[in-house]
């Protein structure tokens, strides 16, 4: 599985790519018991064509809501703002028909829990072929393509397995079926929300390798949502770090995760123990992650930040360029970056 590791630097620098998707000042407000809560607060990043972008951050930081806003799967009562530029066209403000066409064909999604996302009463093959059938593809051709899709997703014996139900699949196989389903519409962007979190390391490695192969073979872009830094470090070329609904930092994944510019990223990186050498226990961050519902004033990270000063308590740090190709929302990013 060393191919997972060697491919990490795959993908040319961002500047040379056209941005397939530009998330620009995205906001998501969800109705809460005490009024609306802004769970995604001005998030901006680009997904260049043919690359994997990792979206990391603690539970509740807004990763899933960001991905769901892109695919248009927000809960009832959610309100969105900002722009989602898909090949230059704003999907947030496009008409319903255009949005539906984009989401499903051009953009598709796989989820952490494939069992919840798959229909338990329908055979796998039927679900994978759904979008093709809706497009008017003939029966025999749907069947042929379904088997091909399952095969490409690494489902062994695909013709036989197409007739089975989700509960007859293991966790790893279900995720493969989910990937086949997501590829059915020939998308250009795949949103993968914690695709391997429920799987053990050996299965995880196989699924990640599969995603990378597909990404490279088809020139697909992938937005990989994960709270697992190791996964992102090994498969993403760009990374976006979120904290309490905002972008804390973004830039090339190998660089950001080796030399973070934001104290939060730095703390995350330090908390990940090495596998093959014994790592000293990291000094844990004090307190609990901030939630969008009670986001501290100033820098949302200030109550837990080891280098916070007075300014951090009152002044919200803007996301600004801190090094070529890198941006961070910290008043003192230069200090964090200094060797």
């Amino acid at each position, binding site marked *: 599985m060393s191919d997972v590791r060697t491919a990490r630097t795959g993908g040319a620098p961002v500047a040379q790519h056209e941005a397939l998707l530009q998330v620009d000042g995205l906001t998501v407000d969800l109705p809460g018991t005490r009024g609306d809560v802004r769970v995604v607060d001005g998030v901006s990043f680009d997904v260049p064509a043919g690359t994997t972008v990792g979206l990391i951050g603690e539970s509740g930081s807004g990763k899933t809501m960001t991905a769901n806003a892109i695919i248009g799967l927000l809960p009832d009562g959610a309100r969105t703002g900002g722009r989602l530029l898909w090949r230059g066209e704003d999907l947030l403000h496009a008409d319903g028909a255009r949005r539906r066409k984009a989401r499903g064909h051009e953009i598709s999604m796989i989820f952490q829990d494939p069992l919840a996302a798959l229909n338990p009463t329908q055979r796998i093959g039927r679900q994978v072929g759904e979008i093709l059938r809706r497009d008017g593809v003939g029966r025999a051709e749907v069947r042929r393509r379904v088997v091909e899709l399952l095969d490409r997703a690494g489902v062994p014996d695909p013709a036989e397995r197409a007739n089975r139900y989700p509960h007859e699949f293991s966790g790893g196989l279900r995720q493969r079926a989910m990937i086949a389903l997501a590829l059915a519409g020939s998308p250009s962007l795949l949103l993968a929300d914690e695709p391997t979190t429920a799987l053990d390391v050996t299965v*995880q490695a196989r699924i990640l390798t599969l995603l990378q192969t597909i990404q490279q073979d088809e020139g697909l872009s992938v937005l990989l949502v994960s709270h697992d830094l190791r996964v992102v470090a090994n498969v993403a070329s760009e990374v976006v770090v979120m904290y309490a609904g905002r972008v804390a930092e973004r830039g090339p994944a190998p660089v950001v995760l080796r030399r973070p510019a934001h104290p939060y990223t730095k703390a995350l*990186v330090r908390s990940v123990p090495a596998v093959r050498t014994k790592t000293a226990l990291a000094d844990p961050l004090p307190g609990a992650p901030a939630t969008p519902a009670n986001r501290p004033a100033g820098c949302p990270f200030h109550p837990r930040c080891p280098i916070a000063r007075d300014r951090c308590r009152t002044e919200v740090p803007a996301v600004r360029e801190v090094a070529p190709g890198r941006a961070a929302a910290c008043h003192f990013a230069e200090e964090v970056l200094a060797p």
Partner: protein
Amino acid sequence: MTLLEIRDLRVTFGRRRDPFVAVDGVSLDVGAEETVGLVGESGSGKTTVARCVAGLQRPDAGTVTFEGRPLERVGRRPAELQRAVQMVFQDPRSSLNPRMSIAAIIGEAWRTHPSTAPDGDRTAALHALLADVGMDADVADRRPGDLSGGQCQRVSIARALAVRPRLLVCDEAVSALDVSVQAQILRLLVDLRRTHHLAMLFISHDLGVVHQIADRVAVMRSGQIVEEGPATEVLAAPKHEYTRALLDAALDLDDAGPAVTA
């Protein structure tokens, strides 16, 4: 001295004619104040071993003893042995009763094992226990639903500690937590090991975490232990091919922090 002794443990599930062997002759020791890591891919039998130790699963064959005394199923265990072995599970939320306050959850543990209940001021003892796991006294009146995953895991650990155990069996106890919260819980477990003289059987998919906190590591595959030894040997210089495959599949973050020389 050996605290926990598992000998030739065998557990099967399913039909008597054609049983599925989940644990197939496992022998493993945990010494006093020692932390033993148990790793292996999904379905290899780790949880089943843990459940036998906790008395939640009856083995088909083999023995589990604690200081030489047999550990039978939970109902049949002498109270003193029952409290000596406590378990912490992966999903902190579902292992706590959502309708009970944190104070009631801890109170129930004391009621189950009256010999461990504080003699004097219960509230003071409760607050001291919460402080031990790094929580403020004001969580005592809250319910699990009002707490984060990390806080719930602290409560599970506090509940286990309330009855003064000697061995903690942690089954993926930090796996569902975010890395920063995971670091807090690991630090807590390591501190408690010292202050409360705890031994631990620590099950995890995360080989990095196991490397960090285990003294010894046992590697399971298809119900059997294929390799066992000091953590730094098994995880840095594995002898068995399967351990190597497991390590190969594990991802690493390059610059993961200060390496210590063991």
